[in-house]
């Protein structure tokens, strides 16, 4: 995949970020990143924008209710002399209103980037992308590096949006070579406060999986994800980076660790069940991309990020999953409890 390599000319005098704009601030990732940034005394102002008011208090972050699909975003960027943009607006819960999500993802990004290109105060753009840009298929190499092309590029959903967003971001980076542009391809977020199609999937009373496939998955803990975004915003790390917790977890392994009951079904049946869940069970966003990922999985090589930041995520993939499972109260598995009962009868040897 055409990815921007970390440039060698990073030694350029990096004036610290002064005014930071965070898009998508009303969602959990935006709110947490804004929170982390406002704790930094070097940053004068943190401005958060979103279409809906934030659900939780966001401290000294100034909230502006604005639709980034409109040119009004340029007014804010100019008026406040924003020098750093942290673009977290990628909507991944797509199935509810796909057209709207696509507009927010793609048109919103175009408006934002157009405004950045015009701004003379602008210095840095950090874009949240997704590992979904690599697609997911049985023809994939075991591990994706930032330079690998997807074998079967995503054709729909937010994965395709992310591909298009990255394309526009690369275009901007070409036209404004003075900007430090960081693109972060995140693995799926998990953690105590994550509410995503994936977390809801794990919460299903009986979890359907695709018969005959056991995908290799990676997760990034929300704390680590926020830390990466914070570092990218306050330091200069231009380039494209994969972000994922170390190690790999199999879907079956994760479900067993979380004590979920597994129902193995052929792929079309899983999709049908997901669609029904979407309609009746509040299981928003059980998308075809999610199903492909739950069939074939995907693993990222995160070496480039580790070298660039001299840092490794605190939570490995399985620790991120364990923290999510513990804090959101996924229980003890029935087969395991039964097994323990049978092998250690009360009053037995041990």
């Amino acid at each position, binding site marked *: 995949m055409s990815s921007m390599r970390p440039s060698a000319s990073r030694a350029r005098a990096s004036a610290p970020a002064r005014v930071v704009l965070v898009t998508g601030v009303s969602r959990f990732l935006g709110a947490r990143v804004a929170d982390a940034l406002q704790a930094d005394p070097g940053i004068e102002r943190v401005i958060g924008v979103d279409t809906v008011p934030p659900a939780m208090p966001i401290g000294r972050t100034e909230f502006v209710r604005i639709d980034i699909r409109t040119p009004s975003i340029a007014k804010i960027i100019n008026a406040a002399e924003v020098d750093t943009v942290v673009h977290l607006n990628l909507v991944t819960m797509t199935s509810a209103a796909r057209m709207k999500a696509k507009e927010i993802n793609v048109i919103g990004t175009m408006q934002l980037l157009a405004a950045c290109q015009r701004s003379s105060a602008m210095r840095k753009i950090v874009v949240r992308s997704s590992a979904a840009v690599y697609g997911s298929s*049985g*023809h*994939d*190499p*075991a*591990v994706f*590096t930032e330079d*690998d092309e997807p074998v079967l590029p995503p054709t729909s959903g937010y994965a395709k949006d992310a591909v298009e967003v990255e394309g526009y971001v690369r275009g901007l980076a070409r036209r404004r070579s003075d900007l430090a542009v960081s693109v972060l391809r995140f693995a799926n977020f998990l953690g105590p406060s994550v509410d995503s199609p994936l977390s809801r999937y794990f919460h299903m009373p009986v979890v359907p999986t*695709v*018969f*005959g*496939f*056991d995908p*290799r998955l990676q997760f990034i803990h929300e704390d680590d994800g926020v830390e990466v975004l914070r570092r990218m915003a306050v330091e200069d790390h231009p380039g494209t980076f994969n972000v994922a917790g170390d*190690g*790999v*977890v*199999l879907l*079956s*392994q*994760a*479900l*067993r*660790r979380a004590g979920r009951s597994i129902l193995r079904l052929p792929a079309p049946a899983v999709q049908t069940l997901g669609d029904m869940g979407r309609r009746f069970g509040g299981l928003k966003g059980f998308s075809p991309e999610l199903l492909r990922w739950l069939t074939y999985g995907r*693993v990222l090589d995160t070496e480039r990020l580790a070298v660039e930041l001299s840092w490794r995520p605190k939570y490995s993939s399985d620790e991120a999953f364990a923290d999510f499972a513990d804090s959101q109260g996924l229980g003890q*598995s029935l*087969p*395991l409890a039964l*097994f*323990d009962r049978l*092998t250690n009868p009360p009053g037995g040897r041990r």
Partner: protein
Amino acid sequence: MKHEPVMEEARPEMRPEAQVIPLNTDAADRLAHDSESLDHKIASALRFVRRRLSGEYEIDEFGFDPELNDRLLLPILRPLYERWFRVEMLGLENVPDDGAALVVGNHSGTLPIDGVMLQVGLHDDHPAHRNLRLLGADLVYQIPVLAHLARKSGHTLACQADAARLLAKGQVVGVFPEGFKGVGKPYSERYKLQRFGRGGFVATALRAQVPIIPCAIVGAEEIYPKIADLKPLARLLGFPYFPVTPTWPLFGALGLVPLPSKWIIAFGEPIPTDEYDPAQADDHMTVFDLTDQVRETIQNMLYDLLRRRGPAFFRV
């Protein structure tokens, strides 16, 4: 002919069970020992089941699950290796005890059972119990069940990136450059090596600077003698061929039982690649020369082994 002495040396260690039988001494003592070890076995098996149920095991980034492989997958294959095909391993000293190497073998048998037998052999009979990481066809990773069992058993997709990554981690990587041309060839062409692709495996070895170990497998050709190919049916199912053997599809599922041919697997002397420059991986002349050298070596080994084995059936 130069690998002949290698085989003679390796011969005495071939069949370990032959030496176990004379130890039959004190029957009572053995019985006590057996029940103790049975207890131990049951406890360890229960611990294994509990770990599987609770998900407490580790896998690598390729999905290799060493515990599942050692305790479930290999034991299932072992009777096939030891009793059914009576596989003899020769020249194991040519496979290093540690560090990376690329094992290049001939492919045959209609179904790729030669790959798993090679895996069992390197694990069981090699002194360092090496895990062979095979590079398999895309098709394997499309087929339910097979897809994830192949990964859990340590194998991955045949692509440059995966091969390079495994070699960089010091693994023994196995590859069958003939691919479907080899495994799916008719019985009449048995033991005739097919074209070795574009020599991608040589380029990979050159880049990684790891030795190429030629490997000849005799016996796999006779397990499912393919006498015809139902091409339209194959196209319909998306398979590269639909074989007809004397027993399949005539006897239904029974036709899936492989014929019990006698197998010999031999490793030739490693072909070093560190005397080349890694950049020569892009030099087609070097790559083709090395490819031909490997191919010829394996073909000669096959002829020698065939002479050594004699008839395929009705011998121990």
